[in-house]
């Protein structure tokens, strides 16, 4: 016990990134059941390590535990020392992200073991599971890396790895549509990544010491600072599927549903908002204008998307569009944070976790629907509640979480964002009221969809006996509980995430 107690969060960082990567390597050589177990074991290991790290941090949430790993001598400037480029660190914001990434990653792995099976009506899968888990665990590792990255350079490296993983996973079924969608996602996010790179270059050229550190933006000249921020923002927009780059996300629904779940709830798109949250949290002196830009674009995204999903018949695409608008929420919260509202910023951070759980739950539920029925068209589904009560529970809890019905997590985050917006007054208040309106419309729509799909006369006969899909059911139940409980974990954490002023 004493040995355990002496371990600090810092010691766990390397194993934390390494565990999923090792798992991924092993999975490449495994098949079927074996790959299920190995993937599950490594997901659990990652989860336990993450829990250890977060638990360790909990005693002192205000510190940052840093673990420098390496320098690039070539990058040494004329005057300063070589900048630190490889570095892991953990602080409150990392912990929040780490929580989302590992918990949902773990649940997705469990869920996949049943989802990718010959019993799946929509896409019976008999082989290729090893490849699937390899990429998935690689993805988890990359996301853990993003969460734990100690500077922008390190973050960028993992950032591009996630792009790669998402390409592989979106194209997993290897049919025409999924190949196209994967390629589209790769191109669009990679173009965004170029802007990230550009930002890195600008930082490197203009700063002598520590050009890649998270607080680097604050040390730039004001004009340049805005430019770099805008470049990072473009990268984030591409990653987080914001207007005008949002088109890759609905197409990416060609991926297996657990992958869509991970992509939307925890990984990929969250990386984009995490980057902005990180910048806003660490940088000083961001101008009103960049806040305005990011706020208006996010607001435009939200309003376009809420309009789009009223005319959508595909369950997964609805969820995809809803994801886009919720990332918009988080970016708006960051924009409000740039304008000085700590409340809204904290709300946005809480929304990362809340939306992660809610949207994850929605995706897993929809996945189970397609698993049993083979369709995800709303017009073809009805009366599923009687046959799949757990799925109905999952869907409604998820929908109520993302649309913000108390006491579920989404309410608290939206409440904080609204409060922050109204506190700022002026344009902030306008944004807040528009968000409220969007929230109402989305709520009505989700309720309608839920009733349409789960109530009424059953549209299909249950092909198998009950209890077959226990890994999926378990994942849904755990996530449903988390939708309620995540606030308890996240609220203490977000209070310790500073807002750069």
């Amino acid at each position, binding site marked *: 016990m004493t040995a355990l107690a002496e371990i600090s969060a810092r010691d766990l960082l390397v194993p934390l990134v390494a565990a999923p990567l090792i798992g991924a390597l092993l999975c490449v050589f495994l098949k079927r059941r074996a790959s299920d177990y190995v993937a599950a074991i490594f997901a659990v290991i990652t989860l336990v390590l993450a829990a250890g790290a977060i638990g360790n941090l909990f005693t002192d949430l205000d510190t940052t535990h840093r673990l420098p790993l390496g320098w690039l001598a070539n990058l040494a400037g004329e005057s300063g020392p070589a900048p630190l480029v490889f570095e892991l660190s953990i602080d409150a914001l990392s912990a929040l992200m780490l929580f989302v990434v590992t918990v949902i990653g773990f649940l997705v792995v469990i869920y996949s073991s049943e989802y990718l099976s010959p019993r799946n009506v929509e896409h019976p899968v008999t082989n290729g599971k090893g490849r699937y888990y390899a990429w998935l665990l690689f993805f988890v590792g990359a996301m853990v890396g993003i969460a734990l990255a100690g500077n922008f350079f390190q973050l960028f490296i993992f950032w591009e790895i996630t792009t790669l993983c998402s390409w592989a996973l979106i194209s997993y079924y290897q049919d025409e549509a999924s190949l196209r969608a994967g390629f589209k996602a790769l191109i669009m996010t990679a173009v965004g990544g170029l802007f990230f790179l550009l930002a890195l270059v600008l930082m490197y050229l203009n700063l002598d010491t520590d050009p890649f550190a998270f607080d680097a933006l604050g040390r730039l000249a004001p004009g340049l600072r805005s430019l770099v921020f805008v470049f990072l923002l473009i990268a984030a927009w591409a990653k987080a599927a914001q207007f005008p780059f949002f088109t890759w996300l609905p197409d990416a629904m060609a991926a297996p549903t657990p992958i869509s779940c991970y992509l939307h709830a925890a990984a990929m798109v969250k990386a984009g908002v995490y980057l902005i949250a990180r910048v806003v949290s660490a940088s000083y002196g961001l101008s009103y204008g960049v806040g305005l830009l990011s706020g208006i674009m996010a607001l435009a995204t939200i309003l376009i998307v809420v309009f789009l999903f009223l005319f959508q018949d595909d369950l997964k695409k609805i969820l995809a569009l809803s994801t886009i608008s919720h990332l918009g929420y988080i970016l708006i919260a960051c924009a409000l944070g740039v304008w000085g509202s700590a409340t809204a910023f904290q709300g946005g951070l809480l929304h990362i976790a809340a939306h992660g759980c809610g949207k994850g739950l929605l995706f897993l539920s929809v996945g189970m629907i397609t698993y049993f029925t083979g369709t995800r068209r709303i017009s073809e589904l009805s009366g599923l509640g*009687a046959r799949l009560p757990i799925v109905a529970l999952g869907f409604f809890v998820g929908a109520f979480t993302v649309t913000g019905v108390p006491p579920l997590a989404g309410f608290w985050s939206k409440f904080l964002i609204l409060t922050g917006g109204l506190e700022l007054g002026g344009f902030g208040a306008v944004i807040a009221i528009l968000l409220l309106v969007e929230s109402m419309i989305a709520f009505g729509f989700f309720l309608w969809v839920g009733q349409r799909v789960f109530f*009424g006369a059953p549209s299909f006969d249950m092909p198998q006996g009950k209890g077959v899909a226990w890994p999926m059911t378990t994942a849904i139940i755990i996530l449903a509980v988390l939708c309620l409980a995540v606030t308890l974990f996240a609220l203490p954490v977000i209070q310790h995430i500073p807002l750069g002023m």
Partner: protein
Amino acid sequence: MAVIDLLIGALILLTVGAAVTALLAKWRAVCGYVAFLFVAVASVWVGVAAFHVLSTGSPLSGAPVLTIAPLNSSLVFTVDGLSAVFLLITSLVAVCATLFSVRYMLVYKHHSLIRYYPILLLFFASVISVVSVRNMLFFLVFWEFMTLASYVLVVFETDNPEARRAGLQYFIATHIASGCILLATILLYTYAPVKSFEFGALLEGTRVLMTTSPALVHLILGLFVIGFATKAGILPFGFWLPQAHPVAPSPFSAVLSGCMVKLGVYGLLVVFTSLTPLSHFTTVWGVWLAALGTISVFVASLTALQQTDSKRLLAFSTIGQMGYIWLGIGTGLALLRISPAVAVVALMAGLFHVVNHACFKSLLFLNAGAALYRTGTRDMDKAGGLMRIMPVTAAAAIVGSLAIAGVPGLNGFASKWLIFTSGIVGGLEIPLFVFLVVVAIFISAVTLAYYMKFVGILFLGKLHVGPEVERREVPVSMVVPQVFMGILCVAFGVLPMLALKYLYVAASGILPPGYSPPFASLFGNSALAVRLGLSGVHSAAWGPLAILVAFAGCLVLGYLISRMGGAQTREVPMWLCGEEHDFAEVRYPAHSFLLTFNEYFAKLYPSIPVPRLPRPAAILRLFDIDRWFYSPGLRWGERIIRAISATHAGYPQLYMLWMIVGAALAVIVLFSMGGGL
């Protein structure tokens, strides 16, 4: 143990009960009795705590249970006089409805009870929580959770399209209403000098705003009113109510009407007494509330007259009765600054009607539920004369109907009498109220009319049911709650002072200390008669006991006279002017009743169909960025690349040419840059 712990204990008990009933859901009857047990114990605890507050007159408060630091809010359970009143009616309705459910819910053979009892228990817990917090953030949380739970129960019959539509309408409408409340709350919070969601802090926020921007105060109060009016079913915001109340399982309809819609009134009182300082805003909005209430009274009651669905009739009646309550409360708030005596009486009248309506409306929904349980239909054209087979239910229904119609001696009269009296006396200050009272009194005759219709057609007269209907009274567990509620209706009717004494504690508790005149000066010293002294002299009186004794005496006198002649009784067939008819042929159906009168008011409550959203193809194309931007962009890129690749045709001569051209270009460039070799 402190008394407040009873309340917290009850909340824990209900939550545990929810878990237990969820596990027991397969054993349908057992599950019901277990749920009843939990609710009964929790209700007794809550009732004791509430009664303690009302009898001592001092609020109870506990320790913080939960703290949300970013919003400076902590969850503290507090019971003051006002909440105690609502806690009492909640526990009453809860016990009765749950007991009634036990047998009633066995009807639903194909629906899992896991969607009923656990949710019902959580619903009660949330109602109790809503009225016992003094923090707007937690108020909202519990408020919306209550909506969520009630939604689940409203759509309990998920295979019924009517229920689905009603549920959707209900939840969306109330969610938007909660949005209004949320917005108003946050607006107040942002102006509060001390950043907190405690009622006290928000009150200071209003005080600040009143001097800096009165228009915003009106906006905020308007948002609050819309929010609470929606929940309370006040027209035009309560349009969801006539759809949602009938489709819920009957015991829950009783809870909806008896308990949940009342919380709209609670919220309103909180807003205007705890969040708004006594000012001209109170007066202005009081008048608005009274007017809104009267509109509801008028429209809903006349519409109720036209209904043939028993539960829908009751639902419209709920809107109407809520209108009476709003009239009372509105009168009270409007007169608060002008004439505290009248105002306190009016507020108490509103609260008294809240209590009374909880008694008789849940009773009536249980009656309708019992009839539905027995006959399987809510259509009054298809069933009637049930007194023959269900005498106790029918008797309870008659008591309930007479009470809600305001027949003297029953509780509905006592509260309506107070509402009317305070309105008329208040009219001397603000004349509008007299007109509102005239409308309200007129409508109380309408109320009588449609309850005559309800009781008359459903219970009195000749038995008219299908052959499959079992000809006996509903089970005991369904009879007991009805009888209990019926007794309450009579008790509050005969001894109104009993209730008024405690309601005075509630009403004076929400006003500034020392603001309300002493009880005896308002209501006289007699425990048996209410003698209102509103302008120095006794200006109105209602002594139920004396009047009832006189009434009983007259009854005896009448009986003696009617037996005087020693007339014999003989059974005869019905006389149809000498013609031979089958009864079914000449039966007078529910919809023809009052046909002439209804024709005047048929258009009063228009049903507006939901417009279908057309698919705006142009806008959708506009947002399809792929189509008009990325794809053409890619195509152009491809075309350019193809054009370039056309230059690599595979002929060595061509490559030689490019090399020469390239070299030449390079030379030219170098020359122009460097200014010579």
